[in-house]
């Protein structure tokens, strides 16, 4: 993301909040220097890893998967039967997505994904998790009050809908297949993918309606 380039503009604000940020920044720099001098890491590898997760692996991947599932019923069947293989068809594989399961939202069932113990998240399809997903507020509340969580994201469901929370306690990673929005008939996969937000694939929101602001 381009914010990387603007980091220095923000540093002044962060330092004004207290000394902790500059302390952690110095600790990280010292550790990278130490590990480099000990020959334990190659700084160019660090650069490449940062670039990979800042620019190449993110929620647009998952949106392509969802759009394909909406557009192609046979693909949707494969996705729900063996998500790892179906997602690999689109080229998305690897770290923290080795064993994928896709769960489908319907008018009767609303799926929501959390990791209460750490912050497990399906990197190949969604990228690295947002701060809110890693927050203590979300991790604690999602299992005991998922409807309260959904309300915070502006979604209210009737009492007859089953809210199904998936706590990612193992190496299975979950992708929510949101309901295809009304009014999206006739859209091609590119246009459908534009309706699929990261949050809808975690299950805290629905996919966007065509014409809604993204």
């Amino acid at each position, binding site marked *: 993301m381009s914010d990387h380039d603007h980091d220095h503009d923000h540093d002044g604000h962060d330092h004004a909040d207290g000394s902790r940020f500059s302390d952690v920044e110095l600790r*990280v720099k010292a550790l990278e220097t130490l590990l480099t001098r000990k020959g334990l890491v190659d700084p160019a590898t660090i650069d490449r890893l940062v670039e990979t997760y800042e620019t190449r692996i993110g929620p647009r991947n998952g949106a392509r998967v969802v759009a394909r599932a909406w557009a192609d019923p046979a693909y949707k069947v494969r996705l729900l039967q063996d998500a790892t293989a179906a997602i690999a068809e689109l080229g998305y594989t690897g770290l923290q997505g080795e064993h994928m399961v896709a769960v489908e939202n319907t008018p009767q069932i609303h799926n929501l994904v959390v990791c209460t113990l750490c912050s497990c998240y399906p990197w190949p399809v969604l990228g690295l998790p947002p701060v809110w997903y890693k927050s203590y507020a979300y991790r604690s509340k999602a299992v*005991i009050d998922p409807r309260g969580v959904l309300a915070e994201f502006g979604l209210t469901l009737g009492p007859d809908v089953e*809210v199904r929370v998936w706590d990612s306690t193992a190496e299975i990673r979950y992708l929510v297949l949101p309901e295809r929005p009304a009014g999206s008939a006739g859209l091609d996969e590119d246009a459908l993918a534009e309706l699929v937000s990261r949050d809808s694939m975690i299950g805290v929101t629905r996919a966007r309606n065509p014409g809604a602001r993204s």
Partner: protein
Amino acid sequence: MNGVHDMGGMHGFGPIGPEHDEPVFHHRWEGRVFALRLAASMLGQWNIDIGRHAVERMDPAGYLASTYYERWLASLETLLIEAGLATRDEIDSGVPAGPPPAGLRVPAPSDVDRITAKGRNFRVDVDLAARFQVGDTVVTRNDHPLGHTRLPRYARARHGVIDRVHGVFIFADASGSKRGDQPQHLYSVRFAARELFGPQAPAADTVLIDLWNAHLEPA
């Protein structure tokens, strides 16, 4: 261990507060520590479960006061020291005190695409009979181990139903406590929200948790 990391069902952490147009990393150091920890893990001196347990073993007040990537930094220091790759003095001073350990394969930039796209395999190819089938009723053990466990406190001694049989996987509780892989079946277990959180929970709602054979007994 019954640590502060085991937060499912706790109260009092306030609103979730999603951020609009959030960057992947909010500060340059967050990206560096993310990648340093990932690259260091590729040296093969610890597994992902030991890595998670290093976070859990943080001082509880320090855990709660830290941001996510601050916890990655603290746990990376712990992992490096415990693996013998660096000493506390070296980390505090930033100056190497001795030669690098021999025989380590340090990932090169050209390895990154392959490693990130390949991932790791947590499934174990052994022929074990599954103890439970989809639809079986089970009860979780009321265990409180001092080491790593992926059975959250909020789901101990609770009745549930086998929803999916995932196959045989490395057992994280063992692997994170340096007791070997102990491969065994992994299941998604479906719990009624009311079984976990009492009659105030909505009747329709459920929570599914991935649990291993050793977490479960027939009910």
